[in-house]
């Protein structure tokens, strides 16, 4: 194979992956990835270190390489408890990196997130470097051309960087799940597994005659060495790998950030261990076979590739290369993405924001930050590779990263399960752990490279023996990894304990601690990234909402929420997470999604100053428009209210005047009979000698006037009752003509006095109407007696009935003097006659027609008048006929 064809093959492979990622991401209908893909993507754990380095380590140290896989396998069941909780918290708070997670737990401390970012970079960059080294080693093994090492590594690094940029950072939204990335990482996992199994089968069954054949050929001493296990080292490796499987940035990214459904964990819990077992099936045969066939002539890390190459199997060799390449690139890709999210979000973006006006921060700036971070990390990795990594084996640098990774573990687990953990103790723990890690693992490397005097490793720095980086405090371990792990963890935990004694958690830390520790109690719905969670105080969110949406709306929304979700607004003293989600949606519509997020997250920080700041900004933005609208609305309301008030006032005034007039008229009307009564009785009393006839006349007047007064009082009360609808009316079907005849009969006495004739002209046959007998008779008698009153001696009164549509019209006509046009409408007013000075005062209370009108209107009818002076007056009224059947 030529140099360039290998480069092309590598680039082609990456191109294929990029194409697949692009196809997955640009699908119109985005489907969640399958749980199998999620489980397989976790196998990013198996890097080129596994692919090449396991064999290398097995060849040197024997079976102990397995420890790195035993750790994850035995911890996987615990994922359902720990990782599920982490995913839940991350989704709820929209955390997308290790740094975010730890800093969120301690009140979103920026310092903490920067610290975690820096520590991650320091520990992972060498790890990425060894992946570049692995690819380069593989290339040089294939090309057998040592001088070309650096050139392809640079090109490969460049190509990988390009693909990271293409695949992961095309879009800005770092919250978005990268389905394409997860898919190709899973594909990588399949490729490297199949490739490794192929080469394993090829070596074991092609080059040898199966397992037993290989073991037969190896000499016994070697097998003893293989089986020897250093208990301490074994334990340490298991411990390291248990933490690495989740706390390495790339693992955290795949397991937590890219998780689309917590239920996927169930699949991963059994599938991932199976994968780890499969990929390790042929490590020992290849290691032993390599030693048998190749011996010391080839770096044991290259056995995997060199074995098929040694027998000239070009296809298997190339396939093995691709497998190794995929193992390396997947690790580089995910690590770079995970780190660059941290670097970009916690270091580059804050710097940009600090130095740019807030208004100028846009998509391009964010994209720039992310791309810059990718390039930065890859450049650092490449430089590390070029100048440092060449001196070390794959697994040694891998393990150094593992030891770094475990420095996060105490703080991380404490975050999840220990409320009392404070920010200071987290900082102390991580800083002291990492310092010891640096001193015991990195310094020796630096010494080995020659940047520091070698005497440090022999006698200790400046001759101080107990500070010897590999034998700290005079303690000697077989393996410097065990040594470093022991001391770093000791100092890590010591730092944590000291931190707890010297600091107290702040209020926001306490709230977050409660939330992290009791994550399961906070929200009932899992994996919903739209969910904010309970570290908010109702007062704060209400204040912000009210400022933006107005009090009445917020009140309404609160009520709606309660009834719709059937849930309280507050739970355990915090705002119901579902209400926060609801609130964000409300804000979305008011100020846009980005501002809404900003506002909500500002409240979520529980930083009172931040809340106030947000309020100021929001207020400034909204106040003008709002005030304006409010003023407008208010003045409109005022105007209409004023008009309403004026109207009401007018109405009241009129009513008041009407009442006053009525009362004064009534009292005036009552004074008249009372006057006669008093005068007459006094006369009778003072004149005992009155003629009997005269006295009887006077007494008759008293009786008559008393009756008049009674009538007046009754009519006033009657009218009052009718007008206020206090009277009860009983509608029954009655024959109208019969009723008319009865009424005529009732006024017969009056007609005789004036010699008046009443004639009836009925246009229809007998009509049945729904009416109150007493009231209708009252109406008819009233009208008849009025007509009689105004008729001249010997006149005629005509009573008519006629049908008009669904009503019957009754009219009573007299031949009296008639009423002036201008007074005709007023005859139905109360006491109209009494007020009318133009006619000779007639007898009566002046309330008769008013009462008549009320009664007719209560029947649903109308009453009106037709009159001509000197020709007579006709009063007409209508009664509705409700039911046609009743007409019969």
């Amino acid at each position: 194979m030529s140099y360039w064809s290998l480069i092309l093959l590598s680039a082609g492979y990456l191109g294929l992956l990029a194409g697949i990622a692009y196809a997955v991401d640009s699908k119109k209908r985005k489907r969640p990835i399958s749980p199998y893909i999620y489980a397989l993507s976790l196998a990013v754990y198996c890097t080129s270190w596994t692919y090449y380095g396991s064999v290398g380590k097995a060849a040197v140290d024997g079976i102990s390489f397995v420890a790195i896989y035993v750790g994850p396998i035995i911890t996987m069941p615990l994922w359902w408890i720990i990782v599920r909780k982490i995913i839940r918290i991350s989704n709820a708070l929209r955390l997308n990196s290790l740094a975010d997670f730890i800093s969120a737990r301690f009140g979103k401390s920026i310092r903490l997130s920067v610290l975690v970012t820096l520590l991650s970079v320091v520990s992972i960059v060498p790890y990425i470097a060894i992946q570049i080294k692995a690819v380069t080693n593989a290339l040089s093994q294939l090309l057998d051309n040592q001088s070309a090492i650096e050139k392809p590594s640079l090109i490969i690094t460049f190509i990988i960087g390009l693909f990271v940029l293409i695949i992961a950072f095309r879009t800005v939204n770092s919250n978005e799940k990268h389905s394409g990335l997860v898919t190709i990482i899973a594909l990588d996992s399949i490729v490297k597994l199949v490739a490794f199994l192929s080469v394993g089968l090829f070596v074991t069954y092609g080059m040898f005659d199966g397992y037993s054949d290989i073991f037969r050929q190896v000499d016994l001493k070697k097998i003893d060495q293989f089986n020897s296990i250093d208990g301490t080292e074994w334990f340490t490796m298991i411990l390291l790998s248990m933490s690495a499987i989740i706390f390495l940035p790339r693992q955290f990214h795949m397991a937590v950030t890219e998780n689309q459904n917590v239920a996927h964990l169930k699949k991963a819990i059994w599938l991932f261990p199976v994968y780890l077992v499969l990929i390790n099936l042929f490590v020992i045969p290849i290691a032993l076979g390599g030693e048998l066939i190749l011996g010391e002539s080839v770096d044991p890390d290259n056995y995997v590739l060199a074995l098929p190459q040694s027998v000239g199997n070009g296809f298997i060799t190339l396939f093995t290369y691709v497998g190794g390449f995929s193992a390396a690139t997947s690790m580089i890709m995910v690590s770079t993405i995970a780190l660059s999210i941290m670097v970009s979000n916690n270091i580059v973006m804050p710097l940009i924001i600090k130095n740019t006006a807030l208004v100028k921060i846009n998509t391009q700036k964010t994209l720039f930050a992310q791309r810059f971070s990718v390039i930065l990390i890859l450049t650092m990795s490449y430089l590390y590779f070029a100048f440092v990594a060449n001196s070390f084996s794959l697994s040694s640098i891998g393990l150094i990263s593992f030891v770094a990774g475990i420095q996060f573990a105490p703080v991380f687990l404490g975050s999840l399960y220990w409320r009392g953990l404070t920010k200071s103790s987290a900082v102390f723990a991580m800083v002291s752990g990492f310092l010891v890690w640096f001193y015991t693992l990195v310094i020796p490397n630096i010494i080995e490279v020659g940047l520091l005097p070698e005497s440090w490793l022999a006698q200790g720095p400046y001759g101080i023996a107990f500070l010897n980086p590999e034998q700290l405090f005079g303690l000697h371990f077989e393996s410097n990894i065990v040594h470093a792990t022991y001391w770093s963890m000791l100092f890590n935990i010591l730092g944590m304990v000291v931190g707890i004694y010297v600091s107290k958690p702040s209020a926001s830390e306490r709230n977050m601690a409660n939330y992290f520790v009791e994550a399961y109690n906070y929200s009932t719905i899992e994996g919903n990234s739209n969910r904010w969670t309970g570290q908010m105080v109702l007062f704060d969110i209400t204040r912000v909402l009210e400022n933006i949406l107005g009090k009445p709306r917020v009140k309404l929304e609160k009520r709606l929420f309660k009834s719709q979700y059937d849930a309280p607004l507050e739970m355990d003293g915090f705002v119901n997470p579902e209400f926060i989600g609801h609130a964000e949606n409300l804000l979305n519509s008011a100020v846009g999604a980005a501002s809404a997020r900003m506002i909500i997250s500002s409240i979520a920080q529980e930083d009172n100053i931040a809340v106030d700041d947000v309020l100021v900004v929001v207020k400034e933005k909204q106040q003008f428009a709002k005030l304006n609208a409010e003023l407008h609305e208010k003045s409109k309301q005022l105007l209409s209210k004023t008009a309403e008030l004026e109207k009401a006032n007018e109405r009241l005034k009129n009513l008041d005047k009407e009442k006053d007039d009525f009362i004064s008229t009534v009292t005036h009307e009552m004074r008249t009979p009372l006057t006669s009564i008093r005068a007459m009785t006094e006369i009778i009393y003072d004149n005992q000698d009155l003629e009997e006839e005269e006295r009887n006349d006077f007494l008759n007047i008293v009786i008559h006037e008393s009756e008049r007064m009674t009538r007046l009082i009754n009519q006033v009360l009657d009218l009052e009752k009718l007008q206020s609808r206090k009277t009860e009316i009983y509608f029954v079907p009655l024959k109208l003509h019969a009723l008319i005849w009865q009424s005529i009969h009732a006024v017969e006495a009056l007609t005789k006095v004036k010699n008046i004739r009443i004639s009836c002209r009925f246009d229809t046959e007998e009509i049945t109407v729904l009416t109150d007998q007493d009231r209708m008779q009252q109406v008819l008698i009233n009208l008849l007696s009025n007509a009689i009153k105004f008729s001249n001696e010997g006149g005629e009164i005509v009573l008519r009935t006629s049908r008009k549509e669904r009503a019957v019209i009754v009219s009573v006509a007299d031949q009296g003097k008639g009423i002036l046009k201008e007074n005709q409408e007023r005859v139905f007013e109360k006491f109209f006659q009494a007020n009318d000075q133009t006619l000779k005062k007639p007898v009566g209370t002046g309330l008769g027609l008013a009462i008549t009108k009320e009664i007719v209107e209560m029947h649903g009818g109308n009453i009106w008048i037709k009159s001509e002076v000197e020709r007579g007056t006709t009063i007409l009224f209508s009664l509705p006929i409700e039911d046609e059947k009743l007409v019969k």
Partner: protein
Amino acid sequence: MSLKLLLVDDEPNILLSLEFLMKKAGYQVFIARDGMEAIDILNQSVPNIIILDIMMPQVDGYEVCQHIKKSPELQNVKIIFLTAKSKKEDIEKGLAMGADLYVTKPFSTRELLKQVRNLSV
């Protein structure tokens, strides 16, 4: 010679009681059932005292009062308003128009007689 008294009211029963009272007291009594009739009578003979209702159809008591005040030959007629209008402002208005006495209905026959006698001295 007995004093002439003109009684004006549209209530026949009140008129009846006043007529009885005043005749009994020795006055020469004239009767008008509304303002118009009163003015007719006033044009023919001059009474010493007029007992005048206010609220009457067509021509009311105020107009009759004004007629008396306008007519030079009626300057000595004493005017007594006898009315149901009993509000303070009504009384003030009646007195302002030049009435000698304002009596509200219902009235005491003895009191009215006493006041009529006082006026006739």
